[in-house]
């Protein structure tokens, strides 16, 4: 029987926004939750994020944005993954995301959006239930 490997999750900050408090907290919560965590650091283009995600063979990308550019940046990551044939990587997002943008983001292929006030334990639990390790 194949041993289930630990989930590999990437926490990424697309765009020029520097508010990384949430992203860094989430990265720690994922680590404490038993996942392998890759944090990209700030100021990444969608292209850089997708390339790193494929190289690192992650199972999920968590995007964080607080500066209002999510409607461009988040779908762009999903599209690029599709282009590279890596759309089995789950993409979710978090940050300052107005409620009415959420359905549009989900239509664009973002699996889930976590807004301010989401408890860390809930987010970790969601990942456990909704993200499967990609086949090796």
């Amino acid at each position, binding site marked *: 029987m194949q041993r289930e490997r630990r989930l590999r999750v990437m926490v990424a900050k697309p765009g020029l*926004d*520097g508010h990384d*408090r949430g992203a860094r*907290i989430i990265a720690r919560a994922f680590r404490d939750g038993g996942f392998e965590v890759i944090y990209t650091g*700030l100021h990444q283009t969608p292209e850089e994020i997708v390339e790193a995600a494929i190289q690192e063979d992650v199972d999920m990308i968590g995007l964080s944005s607080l500066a*209002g550019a999510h409607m461009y*940046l988040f779908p762009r990551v999903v599209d690029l993954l599709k282009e590279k044939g890596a759309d089995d990587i789950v993409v979710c997002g978090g940050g300052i995301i107005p409620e009415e943008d959420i359905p549009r983001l989900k239509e664009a292929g973002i699996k889930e959006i976590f807004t301010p006030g989401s408890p860390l334990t809930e987010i970790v639990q969601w990942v456990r239930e909704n993200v499967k390790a990609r086949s090796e």
Partner: protein
Amino acid sequence: MALTYNQEIMSELKRGEEKWSEKLEQVFSERPERLKRFSTVSDREIRRIYTPLDVKSQDFSRDIGFPGSYPFTRGVQPSMYRGRLWTMRMFAGLGTAKDTNRRFHHLVKAGQTGLSTAFDMPTLMGYDTDSPKARGECGKCGVAIDTLVDMEDLFEGLPIERITTSMTINPPAPVIWGMYIAMAENRGISRKDIGGTIQNDMLKEFIAQKTFMCPPKPSLRLITDTVEFGTKEVPKWNTISISGYHIREAGSTAVQELAFTLADGIAYTEAAIERGLDVDSFAPRFSFFFNSHLDFFEEIAKFRAARRMWAKIMKERFKAKDPRSWWLRFHTQTAGCSLTAQQPYNNIVRTTLEALAAVMGGTQSLHTNSLDEVLAIPTEEAATIALRTQQIIAEESGVANTIDPLGGSYLVEALTDQLEEEAFEIIRKIDDMGGMLAAIERNYPQQEIADAAYHYQKQIDEKERTVVGVNKYTSEERLPVEILEIDEELERLQIEKTQRIKNDRDNKRVRECLERLGEACSGGENVMEFIIDAVKAHATLQEVCDVFRAVFGEYRDPGTY
């Protein structure tokens, strides 16, 4: 110096307190205390009661004194708000320069007494709107400024010779300031007559806010250029606003906010002295920027401690002689990070409490956050309510009628002493590392803040700390809140505008200006005049910043968590 409290009375008090404690234990043994542990937002344990015993080593004249006198615990001015209220300076910036100009006119008409500009992310990072890196960001969390024309549109019809302007700008601060000076001069106003503030605090960017361009060392050099230039050429300008605000927003405690901010101030002072400037020539134009978080007494104590600490640092450490160098003058913003997306109208109440703490702490200038700030850029209506909050505090509540109203409160005095002591301890640690630049390179403040932020979040998750509407008193009901939408069309229009200016200008002249600026950068000459020449020739923000990036290199986020 004699201590304020008489020792004999103190022993009597001690006995009184012991007696009361015994009685209290009995009460609590029958019916336990409401919480296992009472603590501030920064998780500082708070005692059941504070008495003169908690401030027994304080001396009134040495530690508290009168407003306008060293160590300025009670305020830098003798009159404080009895003379003039604080400046109501609402932070605004959205869309294009013309959109923001309309908001400025509205706020001035509503009674605001100073301007404060928020720039969008590309501007903050030194990119033009037409840069591929700027896609999707134009005008989103501030105004887009690419060229001098944008700066002129931004301040169209506003009396900049009378009204002071604060600009929240950091890596490209010399460029944005250069544009402001150029705009004034094009209007026939001398640079000697304009007043305002550029944030220009790069050290806190590496620690907290994370908009950066060049590495720490050349960043510090550019700041020193602005300090030197301001001292000689633009005497009414605050060339730097040393900011704890973002340190707190990134999750620090109140003590960390105090310590890291003042340590940054020490680093800037040392750099300017090293440049050959006399401390009293520039220190009076340093200003500060603090956060006002939710813990009412801790915040008031923080502001009082900050004033006393800076006065001591300036007088004792840097031997400044001009009392104005000892003054810690500060702007305050209520804590954006304390606002909740859930039940957003509660944010009005949070902001009111935070504003009240800032005023009771003696701030010179205040921005109150809007209730929708956690969701998007404020609507005009929400921004007006936030401004009205200040006006009600100022003119209806009566709190501005007496100076330092909580001076002498056992609790507030004890907290002021504690915060000062602990913050000086951290500053000593930073000194031992070789100063703030070295501490940042060792990731020390960054790591401390990340630890504190994680600790705070876990306390909320585990319900050890209540956030109304988030982990207690929650409701499924959604109140409708109007959200300001920034039109996507805006980006296209701004790109067109910038490209039109690039086509119409004298490109040869722009190139020459940028080359001369490059030489000044590598040579060590003060860059400011070269920047002003370049922007007057309509060099763009990014073109000037690209010169910095080429000479000094770019800084990349180390990505630690």
